[in-house]
C-alpha cells in the first residue's frame, strides 16, 4: 500500500493506492494532524511539504547569522579563520575563541555554517558546529557540506535557506513520525528522501508540488509528452513533460543561485480560491463561499455559471456578468501562458480541472484530458514516486580520501576506473537501500559526470583523483507500476 500526502496552499491531498486508488481532500484549516489521522500506518508514506516551506522562504526575511570559512581566495562576508584546500586538507586551523566571541550575545534565529571545500573535508565545519551547538539547538544550525557540490557562494546561500527552514522540517518530521515512523519526503525533483537526509539539506524539499503533479499526471494518464495544468486553490501551475519526465532547473532565490534542482514550472498566481473584489485578485482571502468562506472566489463564479462545487447556493452573491468576466479573464490568462509551450496535449489536474480544462484546451487549440483522480494527482504523484539521489563523489588515492556528498566513506584501493565505479555505485545503492528503497528502484545508477586525472610528482604518477556525479533518477517506483 502506498500513501501520498501533498500539503498545498488550500487543501491537503491524500492518495491511498493498493488494488485501487482512493483520494481525499482535507482543508488546511483542519490542521495537518487531522489529515494524518485519516491515514493508516501500514505501507509506505510519502509527504510533499512544499507549501509550509515555501511560505517561510518567500515570507519575511529571517535573521540568520552566517559563519563562513573561506580561507584564501575571493572575499566573503562573515569570514572566520580556517581553511581547507582543494585537495581536502585542513591547511589553516579555526580559532575557537573567535567563534565563541561571535556566539556570545548572538540573537540570530539560526546559524548557517559554510566552509570552502567543506565537501572534500567537513572537519572545520564540524569544529565550528561543536562550538555553536553550545549556544544553539541542532535544528537551528545548518552546515554546508551535506549539500555535496562545489560552488561556495551557492552553497552559502543554500545553507542560509536551510538554516531558515530546518526547524520547520524538524517539527514536520516529529508530527508525521507519530503516524508512520518510516515515512519519506518528496523532493523538489519528485524523488523521495529519508527524513534524515532532508534534515541535512532541508532545501531538497523546496517547491515539491510541481514535481508531485508531474509524477501523478504521468502515472494517471501515461501520457509522455504533454503539458500538465494543475489548478489548485491558490495557484495554477504549468508543468511540461517530455518523454514522461519533467524538465529540471536550478533554483534561484533572492537573486542568487542555490545548489537545489527543481522541476521547471510556470506558476500563475490564480486558482480556485482567488477572491473576486473589483475583479479577480491574485491572492486568497479565505475559502470560497461555497466552502464556507466570506468572499466570493473563482470557484463561486464557476458555480454561478452552472457548476456544483460545494454549497453552490452560497455562491450566488456574484452576478452572472461578473462571474462570466472573471472566468473568461482566468481562461485567457492561463491559455495564453499555455500557448507559450505550444503543447499538443493538456493534462488537467487539481480540483477545478474538470470544470476549466476543456475551455483552456479549446482556447489553446490542444487536446485536453482530465484523468481519473485528477483532483488529487499531486498526492498520487507523491505516493508512487521512488527514492532518488544525486551524489557528488570525490576520490583521492594519495590522501586515501573518498567523500560522497561531503561525507567521508571508507577508502578502497581500486585497480582501475571500472573497479572504482563499481565500488562507489554500490555505496550509492547502499545509501538508497538504507533509506528504504526497493532493489528494483536502485538498479539503474546514472553517471552524470566522470573525470579523473593523474597526480604527477617528480616525473612519476603517484596518485589519481576522480570526480563523479552518480544519480538514481527520480520517477515512479517499480513497485507502484
Amino acid at each position, binding site marked *: 500500500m502506498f500513501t501520498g500526502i501533498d500539503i498545498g496552499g488550500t487543501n491537503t491531498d491524500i492518495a491511498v493506492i493498493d488494488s485501487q486508488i482512493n483520494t481525499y481532500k482535507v482543508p488546511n484549516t483542519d490542521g495537518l494532524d487531522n489529515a494524518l489521522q485519516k491515514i493508516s500506518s501500514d505501507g509506505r508514506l510519502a509527504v510533499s511539504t512544499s507549501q509550509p516551506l515555501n511560505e517561510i522562504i518567500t515570507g519575511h526575511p529571517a535573521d540568520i547569522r552566517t559563519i563562513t570559512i573561506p580561507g584564501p581566495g*575571493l572575499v566573503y562576508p562573515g569570514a572566520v579563520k580556517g581553511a581547507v584546500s582543494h*585537495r581536502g586538507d585542513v591547511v589553516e586551523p579555526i580559532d575557537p575563541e573567535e567563534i565563541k566571541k561571535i556566539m556570545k550575545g548572538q540573537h540570530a534565529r539560526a546559524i548557517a555554517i559554510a566552509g570552502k571545500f567543506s565537501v572534500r573535508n567537513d572537519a572545520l565545519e564540524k569544529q565550528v558546529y561543536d562550538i555553536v551547538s553550545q549556544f544553539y539547538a541542532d535544528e537551528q544550525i545548518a552546515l554546508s557540506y551535506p549539500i555535496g557540490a562545489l560552488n561556495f557562494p551557492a552553497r552559502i546561500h543554500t545553507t542560509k535557506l536551510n538554516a531558515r527552514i530546518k526547524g520547520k522540517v524538524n517539527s514536520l518530521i516529529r508530527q508525521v513520525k507519530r503516524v508512520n515512523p518510516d515515512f519519506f519526503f518528496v523532493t523538489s525533483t519528485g524523488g523521495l528522501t529519508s527524513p534524515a537526509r532532508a534534515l541535512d539539506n532541508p532545501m531538497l524539499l523546496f517547491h515539491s508540488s510541481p514535481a508531485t503533479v508531474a509524477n501523478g499526471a504521468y502515472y494517471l494518464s501515461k501520457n509522455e509528452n504533454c503539458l500538465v495544468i494543475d489548478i489548485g486553490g491558490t495557484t495554477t501551475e504549468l508543468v511540461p513533460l517530455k518523454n514522461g519526465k519533467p524538465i529540471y532547473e536550478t533554483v534561484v532565490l533572492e537573486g542568487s543561485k542555490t545548489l537545489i534542482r527543481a522541476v521547471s514550472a510556470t506558476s500563475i498566481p490564480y486558482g480556485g480560491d482567488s477572491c473576486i473584489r473589483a475583479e479577480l485578485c491574485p491572492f486568497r482571502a479565505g475559502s470560497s463561499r461555497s466552502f464556507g468562506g466570506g468572499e466570493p472566489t473563482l470557484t463561486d463564479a464557476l458555480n454561478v455559471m452552472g457548476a456544483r462545487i460545494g454549497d453552490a447556493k452560497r455562491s450566488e452573491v456574484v452576478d452572472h456578468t461578473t462571474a462570466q468576466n472573471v472566468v473568461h479573464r482566468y481562461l485567457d490568462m492561463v491559455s495564453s501562458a499555455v500557448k507559450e509551450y505550444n503543447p499538443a496535449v493538456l493534462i488537467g489536474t487539481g480540483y477545478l480541472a474538470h470544470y476549466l480544462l476543456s475551455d483552456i484546451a479549446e482556447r489553446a487549440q490542444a487536446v485536453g484530458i482530465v484523468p481519473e483522480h485528477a483532483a488529487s494527482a499531486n498526492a498520487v504523484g507523491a505516493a508512487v514516486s521512488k527514492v532518488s539521489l544525486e551524489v557528488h563523489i570525490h576520490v583521492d588515492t594519495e590522501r586515501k580520501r573518498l567523500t560522497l556528498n561531503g561525507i567521508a566513506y571508507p577508502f578502497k584501493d581500486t585497480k582501475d576506473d571500472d573497479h572504482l565505479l563499481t565500488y562507489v555505485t554500490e555505496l550509492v545503492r547502499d545509501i538508497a537501500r538504507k533509506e528504504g528503497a526497493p532493489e528494483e528502484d536502485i538498479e539503474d545508477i546514472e553517471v552524470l559526470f566522470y573525470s579523473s586525472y593523474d597526480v*604527477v610528482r617528480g616525473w612519476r604518477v603517484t596518485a589519481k583523483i576522480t570526480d563523479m556525479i552518480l544519480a538514481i533518477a527520480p520517477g515512479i517506483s517499480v513497485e507502484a507500476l
Partner: protein
Amino acid sequence: MTCGIVYAPSYLTHEQSSSHPERRERLSYTLDQLEEEGIFDLPQIRLLAPKPAMRDDVLLVHTPEYLHFLEEASVNGAVIDADTYVPKELIHDALLAAGGAITGADAVLNQEVKNSFVLARPPGHHAGRSHGAGFCYLNNVAIMVRHLQRRGLRRIMILDWDAHHGNGTEEIFYDDPSVLFCSVHQYPFYPGSGRFEDIGIGDGKGYNINLPIPAGSSDKVYRYLLEEMILPLADEYMPDAIAISAGQDNHFTDPLTGLALTARGYASLMQEMCILADSICYGRIIAVLEGGYSVEGGLPYTNLGLIAAMAGLDISSIREPEIYQDVLQKAVSEDAFPKVIKMVSELKKKLADHWYFINRYDFR
C-alpha cells in the same frame, strides 16, 4: 568590468606522456578552485568556448613547412627536443590552444568582454617560426597578436612574465617595431637566451626588452620592474592592446624554477596592468596561460588571483594557505633586488636612444 575566460574541457586532453610536467593536472586544481568560488556565476565573468585556429591563422606566424611537420607528426608521433614530444592527435589540441587565444582577442575587440584570460594548453612562447621547443608547439600569443593586427590594430605590447624567456616570441617579432616584446624571466636559466643586451634588430631595434632577473626574485622585484620599466614603456609606446604571456611558474612553490612571486603579487601585477590598459588602450588585455607547474600550491591561487584582478574583484584575500610560508621564506633571496637595480640601469643605457622616458628620468 567583464572578464572573458576562454576554456573548454578539451584543454585538458593534451598530454605528452602520463608523467610529463606539462599535464592535465596543471589545470585541474585551478578549475576546482574556480568552480568552488562560483566564478562562472559572477556577472563580471563570461565563459567563452575556444574555436580552433585555421591554417591561415597559424601561417600568420609559422612556416608552412613547420605546420606540415606538426600535422604529419600528429599521425604517428615525433620528438622535437628532450622534453617536447609530439603525441598523436597533437595538432587538434595545438590548434584549439592557438584558436582560444584568437577567441579571447576577438571577444575583446568585439567589446563582448573588457579583457580575457585564455586557460589554454599546450603553451606556446618557446615556439618559433619554424620549430617547437620547451613543451610548446604553436606560438599562441604570437598568432593572436598577428590576428589582432590583421583586424586593424597597429601596435601591440606583449608582456611575457613566464619564468622562462619567451625566446620563440622574441624570434618572431625581433625586427618588428609594431610589436613591443617585453619579457621578465629568470636568468641564467632555460632556454639560455634573454640577455638584456638583446634589444632587437633593424626597424625592431629598441622594441625587444629583456628583463632577466636572478633566482629568488620576489614581489618587490616585480613591482620595481613594473614601475621602473613596464609601465613607462607602455605609456610611451601607446599600444592598441596588451597581450600577456601569463606563465605562472614564477610562483615561489614552482618545482621547475627558482623565482619567488606570490599569488597576491601576481594579482597586483595584473591589477596594475588593468589600470594601465584602462588609461591607454580601452582596457584591452588578452592574457594567455603559458607555463606554471606548481599545480597545488601555486596555480589555483595565482590563476584565481589573475581572474579576480581582471574582473575587478576584491583581491585582498588572494594568497596561498599559511602552510606555505616557510617555503616562501626559503625561496626569497635578498641579493636579487640590488642585482636587478643594476641590470635595469645598464639596460636603460642601452635603450636610451630609443625611449624618451629613460632620458627624462635621468634628469631627476
